[in-house]
């Protein structure tokens, strides 16, 4: 596994900082329920960035990709089916 140059890590950090600034400032604008979707979207983007570059998922085996996705997928199963109950009460 070739070790990537420090510049790549710094670029990732800058991207994360920019995303943080965006989500923070957008929260001052009232977009109604769109606020939540936007905030979650940016959070997911930041999480993927961290996983790809800082946690070296990029270029690692397909198995690790699946394990990384499995945790989130199972959480979505829990969230969706429970909300399925609360929304249809």
């Amino acid at each position, binding site marked *: 596994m070739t070790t990537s140059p420090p510049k790549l890590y710094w670029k990732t950090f800058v991207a994360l900082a920019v995303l943080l600034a965006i989500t923070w400032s957008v929260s001052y604008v009232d977009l109604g329920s769109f606020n939540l979707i936007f905030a979650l979207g940016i959070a997911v983007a930041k999480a993927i960035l961290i996983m790809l570059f800082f946690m070296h998922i990029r270029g690692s085996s397909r198995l690790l990709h699946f394990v990384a996705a499995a945790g989130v997928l*199972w959480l979505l199963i*829990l969230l969706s*089916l*429970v909300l399925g*109950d609360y929304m249809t*009460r």
Partner: protein
Amino acid sequence: MNATPNATTTIVRHSGAYALDNYLTSGQGVKSWLLTTDHKRIGILYLWTILVFFLIAAVAAALMRIELLTPAGDLVTSETYNKLFTIHGVLMVWFFLIPSIPTVLGNFVIPMMIGARDVAFPRLNLFSWYLFVAAGALALWSLIHGGVDTGWTFYTPYSTTYANSHVISMAAGIFVAGFSSIITGINFIVTIHKMRAPGLRWFRLPLFIWALYATSLILVLATPVLAITLALMSVERLWGVGIFDPKLGGDPILFQHLFWFYSHPAVYIMILPGMGVISELITCFSRKRVFGYAWVGCSSMAIAVLGFVVWGHHMFVSSQSIYAGMIFSLLSFLVAVPSGIKVFNWTATLYKGSITFQTPMLYALGFIGLFTIGGLTGLCVATLAVDVHVHDTYFVIAHFHYIMVGGMVMAFMGGLHYWWPKITGRLYPEFWGKLAAMITFIGFNLTFFPQFLLGYLGMPRRYHAYPPEFQMLNVLSSAGASILGVGYMLPLIYFLWSLKRGRVAGPNPWRATGLEWQTGSPPPVHNFEGTPIVTASPYMYDAEADRELHMANA
């Protein structure tokens, strides 16, 4: 292991049969056991530990059955009865059913089946056992100080605001036991992925490995939710957090969602390893390759995944929305299909086999019979309209005991008898083994079949006093329980007897084809001399050849 030679067991000191330098003789004294990182020894440590918890829970069950002989609750007070069924539930679920096959048979046999020297993280494996012992100590501490009377489901708001028993120490015990099984799950997944012998591709793995791989997936993905649920319940009981407290706007149904999100996959954690053992036993004792290998292997994975989306069938009458109930009911029907595939494939495996009926095979056939009844009655409780009537009655008790006791414990007994020669190098007494298997089968049916009738008649569960018209069936059930008790005590006796006086087993007493049978019994510390190479698919049995062999020396 100094064997005293007598008439029946003349041990030829240097016979190839009994491997003298093995994992049992490689270290002596308590320290060699308490600090071992050998997966085989850790399996045995787990065997003794779960035996302790099984006996305590069995005593609780016996007391409950005696109590239910009479309609009036006269043997024990209602407070004690509530604590009895809670400790029976907690100890059986978390300290016997969930750990037994993975940590005892799995720990012992998985590395040998895939040709590895040990599990991926041996030190973590030992740490998992210490966590399990600490968890058991916490649970017993809570029991000694008065026990818990919330039921093994800990439903709020009773467990958080109204119960005045030792809920938090029991919840802490289960919390720690959860992490012990998470670590075992991680260990098995990494071992099966990374440490298979050369040539051992995924579709050449024995079905026991498939079953334990699927079980480990559930262990790893479901148990953390139990941990957070019990933590939240305990924090709410201590400081009145209010997440589940209706007065603060919390919702007790949310606790049920979180609890059953873990607890339904947990019942698949209990049954899947049993299915893995049965696949091994049926193929070995009918001398025939399993029918539909890929389908049986993939049905284990299908059960693991589908097991996560069906938990709502525990909450059909709990004021969950009827539409969510319908979604869960349909999904619960679909999760029964892979189990059906397995039973049909086992039946088809017997076709054109050369079937023998040693003790493991009796337990395997018993498993298929009882598990099929248990699984089919699962369809009744998955049907919305019928579950409204039978939910929380003895019908449900009979359903899950048919699967847990009729299925999982039978499979555990079958697996223990099957691998006993490999673990100890000695054979159990065949006659007593068969007798115990038959007594268990009869006792079990007499205990739990009447409970189906009781359930549909409407006797609620967790009642220590009941209307007189249910008495006759309850007496039948208690009678059966006494026979079942005998059925379980017999193996305890003759297994201990066989340690000293059992016939020497030799490397492969069943002439089985698994990798674990290619090395000595009891196996050396590193399982194999060199690293075994696997060239063929598992279960290369030949029924025709077996018949000639049998005819030759008959």
